């Protein structure tokens, strides 16, 4: 059961990561909107370390305003960026 639905505002958690991660540093602590749901896949934190049949979680596409990612963003205010997260990386945001 997915915790988030399309249109929900979410903030990316900043979970400590050394050696490997699929959650880019530039997204951490940033808030965006869920724009699409993905199937349940094995999370990369398990696959990367040899647990191929590891824990499955729903994945989400989150859209950010570029101005929310980069304080000095020099492009147009309407520009956006989309990327994916497994559920553990997202907190609800008001």
């Amino acid at each position, binding site marked *: 059961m997915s915790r988030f639905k399309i249109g929900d505002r979410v903030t990316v958690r900043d979970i400590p990561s*050394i*050696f*490997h*991660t699929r959650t*880019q*540093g530039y997204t951490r602590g940033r808030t965006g909107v869920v724009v699409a749901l993905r199937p349940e896949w094995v999370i990369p934190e398990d696959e*990367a370390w*040899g647990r191929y049949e590891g824990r499955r979680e729903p994945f989400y596409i989150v859209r950010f305003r570029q101005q929310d990612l980069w304080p000095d963003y020099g492009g147009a205010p309407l520009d956006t960026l989309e990327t994916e997260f497994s559920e553990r990386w997202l907190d609800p945001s008001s």
Partner: protein
Amino acid sequence: MGTKSSSAYAALMECIRSHAPAEHGVANLPLSISQTRAEALLHVVHDVGGQPDGPIDKSLHKPAHWEKSTHCTAECLAWRGHWVSEERRRRENDLGETLYFGTPYYARWLLAAAKMLLDKGLITPDELFAKMEQVRAREEIAA
């Protein structure tokens, strides 16, 4: 690699000294480092999005046979259950910044695959080094 004369070995040392990290002043087993520098060093190697850089070099590259074959070997190892692509990417990060950025793209795949086979005991170091000597001798004869 291989037997080298002392002058060739000196030239090799000079080349090693010249590549990243260039500042041996800071990359020389420091006795202590700042929290900022520790966080920068521990930042995951492949997580480069947003780092400033110069113009894009749009040169195209026709892959060498070893590059194409490396792609297929890495994929066959995954196809037959010996690793998955996310493990490969983690092992590319494990190579460290100098090898990650200092070698051609498929050298990363290759070094990660070789270390995976050794780590899991699927091949032994003796077998690998003997095979490399055998391939080198064969190629030198062919050359």
